[in-house]
């Protein structure tokens, strides 16, 4: 029987609610990153660069953008006769028909997909981190240690350890305890949510946990169960660049790090390329009066104005005398003449009309969502239209096809949200 040594299962169904309006209509893995990429590109590129050519992608929340992006996996060379990329949405069977209720439950519901390839090992990945990692080295480590499960871990500052799933180890390798967000962490090794399982071990654990829990989860159920059973759980320390982009501030930071003179996370290295679906190919045009400094620009961008310290996606148009600073502009957005944009994130396909001012004023924390919009970032949802001359403060979120009348005196105060009456553009 034909078999694959290792199959990857990529969990891409989560919403990522801490990204606010960015993920209201798009799954987090499909959110744009670094000019021309989407967050999921990093995990997918890691797979193919590590020699894994069979990837199941579990989707659930707002999958349209993700489906369109992945297609049959051509950009990652994952269009294969045997293996390749497979999108796995929830489905109905004769006995049941359930949403994915937890991370392990999602895998449980797709056991037959994995069985088809009869693998020795299964690697579980998340679709929401920015990193370059060779999963093959992790697999070698897994084999050397005769492990049942290998969990990749990342050293975090001890004072931040309470925000992560922390692994306590014997001699830094054998895992003896697993604590989810501990108040008093005993170790600084955080789980990266990347696991290699022996498929036989995982399969039996999935079945048992499915009987006892409705929403079986790797962190909460599978790993503690295996630990208790005495399975050999090994920590694999990863010391490369790894970034969680789960919050708006972290997402913005990770983007901004790419524009450093020599970024720690270097996209320009010829080996370990990051692949993405690339529909737009024309060169970037910078007009006769443009000024562009410390920026990265995607393909087909046309700039007539001034852009500083920003990440600009593909096919963005920026008009004359417009000034953009410390911002992320996603693909196919049009910003017309004489606008000023400061510290904002503007999603895909927006139109910002002339003389709009955004991201200025006092730094009032958002009243409705103080945990999301607090760091001064103003966020515009996808395909939003902002009419001429509107002034928008800090920590705001906007979505929809606005008319001028929806703004009192043409102003949106800092710390407020606005949803257009007219709905989508």
């Amino acid at each position, binding site marked *: 029987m034909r078999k694959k040594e290792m199959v990857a299962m990529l969990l891409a169904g989560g919403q990522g609610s801490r990204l606010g309006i960015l993920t209201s209509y798009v799954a987090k893995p499909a959110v744009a990153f670094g000019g021309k990429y989407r967050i999921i590109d990093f995990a997918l590129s890691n797979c193919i660069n590590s020699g894994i050519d069979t990837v199941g992608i579990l989707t659930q929340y707002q999958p349209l953008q993700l489906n369109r992006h992945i297609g049959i996996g051509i950009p990652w060379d994952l269009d294969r006769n045997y293996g390749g990329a497979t999108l796995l949405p929830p489905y109905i069977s004769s006995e049941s028909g359930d949403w994915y209720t937890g991370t392990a439950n999602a895998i449980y519901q797709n056991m037959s997909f994995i069985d088809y390839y009869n693998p020795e090992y299964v690697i579980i990945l998340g679709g929401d981190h920015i990193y370059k990692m060779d999963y093959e080295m992790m697999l070698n480590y897994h084999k050397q240690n005769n492990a049942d499960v290998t969990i990749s871990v990342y050293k975090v500052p001890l004072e931040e350890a309470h925000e992560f799933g922390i692994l306590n180890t014997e001699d830094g390798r054998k895992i003896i305890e697993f604590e989810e967000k501990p108040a008093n962490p005993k170790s600084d090794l955080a789980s990266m949510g990347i696991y290699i399982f022996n498929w036989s071990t995982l399969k039996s654990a999935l079945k048992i946990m499915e009987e006892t829990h409705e929403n079986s989860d790797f962190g909460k159920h599978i790993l503690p169960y295996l630990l208790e059973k005495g399975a050999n759980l090994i920590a694999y320390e990863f010391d490369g660049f790894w970034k969680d982009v789960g919050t708006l501030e972290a997402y913005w930071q990770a983007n901004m790090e790419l524009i450093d003179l020599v970024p720690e996370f270097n996209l320009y290295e010829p080996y370990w390329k990051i692949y993405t679906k690339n529909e737009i*190919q024309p*060169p970037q045009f910078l*007009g006769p009066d443009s000024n562009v400094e410390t920026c990265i620009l995607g393909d087909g961008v046309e700039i007539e104005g001034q852009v500083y310290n920003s990440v600009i996606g593909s096919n963005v148009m920026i008009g004359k005398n417009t000034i953009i600073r410390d911002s992320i502009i996603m693909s196919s957005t049009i910003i017309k003449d004489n606008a000023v944009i400061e510290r904002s994130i503007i999603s895909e396909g927006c139109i910002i009309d002339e003389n709009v001012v955004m991201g200025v004023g006092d730094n009032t924390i958002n009243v409705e969502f103080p945990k999301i919009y607090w760091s001064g970032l103003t966020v515009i949802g996808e395909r939003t239209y902002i009419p001429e001359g509107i002034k928008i403060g800090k920590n705001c979120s906007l979505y929809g096809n606005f008319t001028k009348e929806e703004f009192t005196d043409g102003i949106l105060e800092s710390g407020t949200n606005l949803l257009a009456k007219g709905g989508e553009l």
Partner: protein
Amino acid sequence: MRALGIILAGGKNERLKDLTVNTALAAMPIAGSYRAIDFALSNMANSGINKVAVVTQYNSRPLVEHLSSSKWWDFGRKHGGLFVFTPYLTHDNSLWYRGTADAINQNMEYLKTSHEPYAIISSGDAVCKIDFNKVLAYHVEKRADITIVCKHVEGEDLHRYGVVQVDDDNRINEFEEKPIIPMGNLVSTGMYIIRRRLLIEMLEAIAKEERFDIVSDIIIRYRKQKKIYAYVHDEYWKSVASLPSYYNANLDFLDKDVRNYFFRQDPTIMSKVEDEPPAKFNVGSLVRNSLSSSGCIINGEVHNSMLFRKVFIGRNSIVKNSIILNGTYIGDNCYIENCIVDSKCNIPNGSVHKAEVGEIEIIVNREPFYL
């Protein structure tokens, strides 16, 4: 579409001088992330032609590499697809292609085993956009034997082209290849439509007489006997087969109308996807009226120029009115004006290359240098 395509991308061309020492003309980079042949291929794909042969022999390796997968032009189909024909040895033939007609004749099986009633022949070195459906409709309407796509050209370089003279019905009655004194300003663009059976017939007929060229041995020789019509296509068209036209065709893309015409008005030009990261503009970069491509890293000043993929410009360097091809590294404190820098070159710190206005200096320097 009831036609198959043939792209002639084979000839030796010395007019681009050092730039085509290692590269076929059809594989020359154009407009940042494209190559010359992308225009012919995209025109065919966008016209619904799904079977295309590229005939090539001179410096074909970079071209074949570019065409290594047909999926970028959507030619990866069960029926039809993309074929690349280079010369090969057989039991009774050991010759290179001796001319454009001979090149097709040596691949006669392609024509004979096809079932499409028409053949569309195009050169691989022109920057243009055309809907061959319209040309074919015209060809059928005129009951022509051969239809040649023609264009009115202004300026002095008429002597580079094949100049045609037409009657009131646009039937061609005179055709002069590279004339000393041109008889008009309507020139052949090197794109033809001909019935497949007639093409087979004519190729076999001229091969018996040891004649090998489409223009001189088919078109000029048969111009009175066959009904050859001109289809006038007065839109953007530029052959890149000379140094000034290669330079100008690239810098034409600084014009917004030209960019919109090729890149934003449907159908657009397609090319092989290279997975380069976004272009990066560091502190101190000043880029005005210029085009840059993915993978570029810019620290210096760029004016009225085109940078192809993966170009590096060092600190305090100035590039003016120039074209920098793929993967070239320009060090710090350089000054480059009115130049074309070849691909994968290394320009050491402090180099100065300045050509007079109206002249174009070609820079080739692949010597490695160390910081």
